[in-house]
């Protein structure tokens, strides 16, 4: 019996020891692998793993293999802070993640203090407005995306009034606070302002509220599972007005969960494996082959995050942690320089991104891109 315990203890100790990491680039990803952010976080993590496998297969970054570690945040700010601190203590070259904006807000000062680049998946507008020079996005911020949506609702959907359905967390509230002034600016009336809960299961009441508002279109801004549930409930309640969304609503995860209820959904998409860019589609195929499901935008974001680190390192020609942030700030990365970035990306001084985006529609359970929108500052 005692022997068994000793073996068990030795095994667990061996598992706990980090692999010998000579001449390797240590990257730590701190992300939501449990709790409310698990869907987004898992996609992000898989995208990162895919990029790391690709880079390592091609000889690594400047001859060094990447060693990737993932830490779960439980979608909790206190735990995120601990995990980011741990990543920095363990000498991560850059911090990847998290994806949810609240946990990012709780941990971004630590990376800033350590002068280490933190490449995140968050979209809340406020993150890049705090004068932090070490935070970098992997997608457009809500402040950049919402004017495009308002424009789309006015000119393409030709809506005079819109019902806004949002999830009451930092993501949804941030989006709601960004879209309403844009709608007003575009002369569109907000017919209903419907707040829903994170993790909410039954959206029948919200769908009825939307139906009764008699709006010309519905803007849906929820996380993945909730988006699918809302679409299903709206279909059951006979809401026939156009459903318009931003990236998440047209994501692969939502389409697979909502099934037929997702058909006809349209809107603006920052990143999509169905975008008319061969590199995106190729990524989509690789992801599908490895994980056996279609990646959403978070998978693409995670993939690009690793390539941002690779590009900055090769650009500065050395492994300097602070230099990664300095090099990324204000840079424009093109697929000609670094194919892994997939599309031309300009990183603004505050960490926001500027790049082309797409207008899309779900037809027969597939996302179809209708138009490509140019960069804000071409």
């Amino acid at each position, binding site marked *: 019996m005692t022997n068994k315990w000793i073996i068990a203890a030795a095994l667990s100790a061996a598992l706990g020891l980090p692999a010998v990491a000579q001449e390797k680039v240590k990257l730590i990803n701190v992300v939501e692998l449990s709790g409310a952010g698990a869907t987004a976080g898992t996609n992000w993590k898989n995208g990162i793993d895919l990029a790391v496998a690709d880079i390592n297969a091609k000889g690594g970054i400047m001859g060094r293999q990447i060693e990737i570690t993932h830490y*779960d945040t439980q979608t909790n700010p206190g735990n995120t*802070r601990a995990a980011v601190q741990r990543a920095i203590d363990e000498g991560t070259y850059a911090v990847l993640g998290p994806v949810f904006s*609240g946990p990012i*807000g709780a941990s971004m*000062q630590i990376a800033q203090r350590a002068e280490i680049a933190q490449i995140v998946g968050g979209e809340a507008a406020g993150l890049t407005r705090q004068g932090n020079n070490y935070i970098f996005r992997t997608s457009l911020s809500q402040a950049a995306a919402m004017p495009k949506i308002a424009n789309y609702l006015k000119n393409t959907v030709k809506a005079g009034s819109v019902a806004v359905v949002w999830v*009451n*967390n930092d993501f949804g509230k941030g989006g709601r606070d960004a879209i309403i002034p844009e709608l007003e600016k575009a002369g569109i009336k907000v017919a209903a302002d419907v707040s829903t809960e994170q993790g909410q299961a039954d959206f029948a009441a919200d769908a009825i509220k939307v139906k009764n508002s008699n709006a010309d279109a519905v803007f849906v801004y929820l996380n993945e599972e909730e988006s699918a549930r809302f679409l299903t409930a709206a279909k059951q309640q006979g809401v026939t007005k156009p459903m318009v969304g931003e990236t998440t609503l047209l994501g692969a995860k939502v389409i697979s969960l909502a099934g037929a209820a997702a058909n006809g959904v349209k809107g603006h998409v920052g990143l999509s494996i169905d975008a008319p860019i061969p590199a995106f589609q190729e990524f989509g195929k690789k992801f599908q082959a490895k994980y056996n499901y279609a990646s959403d935008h978070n998978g693409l974001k995670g993939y690009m995050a690793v390539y941002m680190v690779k590009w900055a390192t090769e650009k500065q020609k050395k492994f300097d942690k602070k230099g990664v942030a300095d090099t990324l700030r204000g840079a424009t990365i093109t697929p000609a320089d670094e194919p892994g970035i997939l599309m031309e990306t300009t990183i603004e001084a505050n960490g926001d991104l500027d790049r082309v985006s797409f207008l899309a529609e779900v037809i027969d359970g597939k996302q179809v891109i209708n138009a490509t929108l140019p960069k804000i500052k071409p």
Partner: protein
Amino acid sequence: MTAPATRETLPQTRSLPLPGFIDGTLLTLLAGAVILWFAPVGMGRYGTYVLSLWLVTSIAVMGLNLTLGYAGLKSLAQAAFMGLGAYLTAILTTKYGVSWYVCFALSGLLTFAVGLVLGFPALRVKAHYLAFVTLAFSTLIWLIMRNEQWLTGGVFGISNINRPDFFGIKLFNALEFHRFVVVITFILAVVLWWMIRSPWGRAFTALRENPIRAASLGVDTRLYTLLAFAIGSAYAGFAGALYAPLVEFIDPSPFSLSQSFFLLLMVVAGGSGYLLGPFIGALLGVVLPEWLRFAGSLYLIIFAAIVMLLLIACPQGMSGLMERAYAKLTGKGAGR
């Protein structure tokens, strides 16, 4: 760590050649404080942060242990009380520049007062009904924290919460702040230790064991029920006042109902009714998941399995287990 808390009058503690007021629990607390003062040296900021988080959580669990373990009141609002303290501290220090020490005291006072008001229903309703009252309160506080954006920052939370000074010493660093937390935790633990040994503590226990008998012996059950609940809540307020500058960011999620359940789990798993139980419970709840991170994506499953096995094997929690082991080793009376 085997010293049973409420059993300070057990014969073995008397046999030690120490002044009458010192017992094993106090010695353990003192030794623990000394060890924790030096423990983080060379541990890095992450290890230090986790230790601090453990202690801060322990304070909240200590309070709940008083409410549940000694007075037998089931409260599901401990995280909400912690949130009250954390938000009060964060708002006053960041928006109005009030000293942290004042905020710390106010957090305790506010949660004590709210505990008194909320405790009134406890006089009429007990057991499940009190649990429901506190459940409603917990939800209410959470909704205020989330929806009143003008005051609490809503879902975006409050960031850049400053850490206090200690007589001119900046506690900006993880190590210094950790030592500050150690001192405060020690003081609060000793106060509770004293309280439990005092006639108050015996009245609390009497209340839990047999309220009718306690009343017949002249214990003012109404007063003591209220006090137990209010003091327990004040400890959560103190914990919140430390949590805000420790994490330097707060949003409503760490103060939700599920966190109250988690704190309750820590009381039970640590051993409710034992003074050192909260430290063991918080160790299980805060530090164990961090230790288990080597197991990768399985770590939460392993954590849950350990807690379930523990509670099946020993319903009295870790402290109860240790007490049984101690009794077996020494051949002395087996606790309960």
